[in-house]
């Protein structure tokens, strides 16, 4: 049975002055309607570039996109720009991190939401405005009939993000991509937005891709997690699998190094040495190997060959890209990682 969203062998590279940057390398993942996939990674991991490709926004730029992006059976990557355009906003839509920069400063919020609706629906301007007010109300903005005529800078951060969600959902898309939607917001507002997205998903059965670097956010919102590093998927599984039983040294490092509200605050955080690589000069073999504490256990393979994304154990849905064999991995996890989680 095919899934609603299927990405197969997606690779995206950009020619730059300093050489070819392979922003995304051979990514594959899938998503069902009504479910949330969290794509987690740090800056330079390629997560945003991936999401833009799903909307076909790289068409017409210098980027080279290969692979399949199947939404409801249609391959976005194989389509021409004007074909994809008719789907943008209608079948799939996107919300961005900085709502103030992502909304046009010179047009009212109502105008911009109505515009999104009018692209795909032949109705009158007043109909579209009614829809805008309806959507503002649906995302929890008080006095929507008044606020529909306000400009983006007149909204607070949280309200602006809600307005952007209203705009993205105005045509009832089946897929919503949220690119770091709460990163710029206060934690109490973030909690409200997370709740809102969850409610809207339940109501409209939308598939959501949530891109973030915050493991707490992804834990509260996602069903599955795709962990990215230097353009590759390095771990893929359910939220429980990846966050409770991580199998990749990067995931181990992340989960033991982030400060939390639980655990012993006096213990030093187990930091990951080094820095994320620049995509122009990705380390050979496994991109994580310069920062990995377990290279010695594997040997030269880590620096010479790129590991495949394989199940952690026979038949498992939890995939990991690492040269450590299953036994070694489980042993390290049991003895060194689990006690620190």
């Amino acid at each position, binding site marked *: 049975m095919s899934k609603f969203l299927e990405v197969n062998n997606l690779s995206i590279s950009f020619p730059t002055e300093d050489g070819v940057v392979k922003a995304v390398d051979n990514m594959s993942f899938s998503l069902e309607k009504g479910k949330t996939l969290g794509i987690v990674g740090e800056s330079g991991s390629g997560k945003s570039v991936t999401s833009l490709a799903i*909307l076909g*926004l790289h068409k017409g730029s210098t980027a080279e996109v290969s692979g399949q992006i199947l939404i409801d059976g249609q391959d976005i990557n194989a389509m021409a720009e004007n074909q994809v*355009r*008719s*789907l*943008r*906003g*209608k079948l799939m*839509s*996107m919300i*961005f991190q*900085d709502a103030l*920069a*992502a*909304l*046009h*400063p*010179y*047009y009212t919020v109502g105008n911009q939401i109505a*515009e*999104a609706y009018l*692209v*795909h629906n032949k109705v009158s301007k007043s109909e579209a405005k009614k829809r805008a007010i309806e959507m503002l109300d649906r995302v929890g903005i008080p006095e929507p009939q008044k606020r529909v005529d306000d*400009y983006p*800078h007149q909204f607070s951060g949280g309200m602006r993000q809600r307005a*952007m969600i209203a*705009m993205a959902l105005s045509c009832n898309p089946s897929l919503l991509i949220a690119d770091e939607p709460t990163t710029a917001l206060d934690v109490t507002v973030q909690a409200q937005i997370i709740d809102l997205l969850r409610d809207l998903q339940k109501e409209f059965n939308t598939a959501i891709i949530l891109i973030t670097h915050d493991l707490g956010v992804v834990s509260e919102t996602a069903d599955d997690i795709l962990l990215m590093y230097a353009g590759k998927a390095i771990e893929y599984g359910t939220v429980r699998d990846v966050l409770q039983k991580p199998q990749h040294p990067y995931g181990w490092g992340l989960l033991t190094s982030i400060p939390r509200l639980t655990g012993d605050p006096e213990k030093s955080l187990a930091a990951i040495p080094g820095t994320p690589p620049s995509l122009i000069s990705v380390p050979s073999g496994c991109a994580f190997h310069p920062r990995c504490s377990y290279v010695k256990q594997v040997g030269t393979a880590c620096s010479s060959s790129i590991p495949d994304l394989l199940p952690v154990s026979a038949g498992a849905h939890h995939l990991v890209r690492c040269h450590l064999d299953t036994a070694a991995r489980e042993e390290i996890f049991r003895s060194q990682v689990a006690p620190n989680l």
Partner: protein
Amino acid sequence: MFNYLVRRILSGVVVLGIVSAIVFGIFYILPADPARLSCGKTCSEELILKIRHTLELDQTLPVQYGRYVKGIFVGRTYLKGTPAELKCSAPCLGYSFQTNQPVTQLLKDRLPATASIAFGASILWLLIGLSSGIISALRRGTWVDKLSQGVALGAASLQIYFVGLVLQFIFVNKLAWLPTPGYSSPLHYPLDWAKQMALPWITLAFLLSAIYSRLTRAGMIEIMGEDYVRTARAKGLGNRTIKLKHVLRGAITPIVTVFGLDLGGLLGGAVITEYVFNIPGLGKLSTDAVSNLDLPVITGTVIFSAFFIIVANILVDLLYAALDPKVRIQ
């Protein structure tokens, strides 16, 4: 908004006052003696004293300035009560004894020519500049872009007098396609008016469209990289809608404000253009007055053009607030 307007007008008046005071003061301390200049070649001491009295130069500076300012509002009468009485009705910006006219009259006579040059050229440079800038931005990096920007750079590096004289030589002297540039009222013979203005328009537009082309191109490119343009694409908007409704709208604001200031400055006199083509406008008036040291006229033209620039500034500020919601004072 109303308060803002009132505040700006008040400060504009203050600035105008300061400008007029400075101009007045400078001419007061200039070594040139206005009386001697007005007197002409054959001059006797007695005549000079008489003229000094007529021009009220024997009064102190504050008194002279005070009467000048008063004259702007209610008019002024020189040599009141004598047979040589000169009436200068409000707004009286002084009296030119060299040409025997009130300065205000001179300005009124010369304004239409300058206004014709300014408005005609501005429409031309806006059309050429904006369209070439937009095309360059949309075709960024291609030969179209490089060519148009190269031409723009070349045009901008040529001096107005050079361009003007060359064009006149080609189109008036050699090809005789156009009559000698000059000014006749557009109300009587609009076609003649346009033909006579054509060269000044083209000359001015030559330089300024180059500047506006670069400005538009840079503005468009900057806006095209903005996040909200990416959002517009993500909504499924077509390319044309994005370019016009989103990008151009974003880029137009700084261009409009610069345009307002340029136009305001030009209304004070397109000095070089008028000089090169011998058009009887405000620019020519002021350069002639400087050559002849006709101080009342110089004072008048400086204040007159300061007035236009201040008004242009205020209008531009209001326009900016109308275009950019963030600037509007709540």
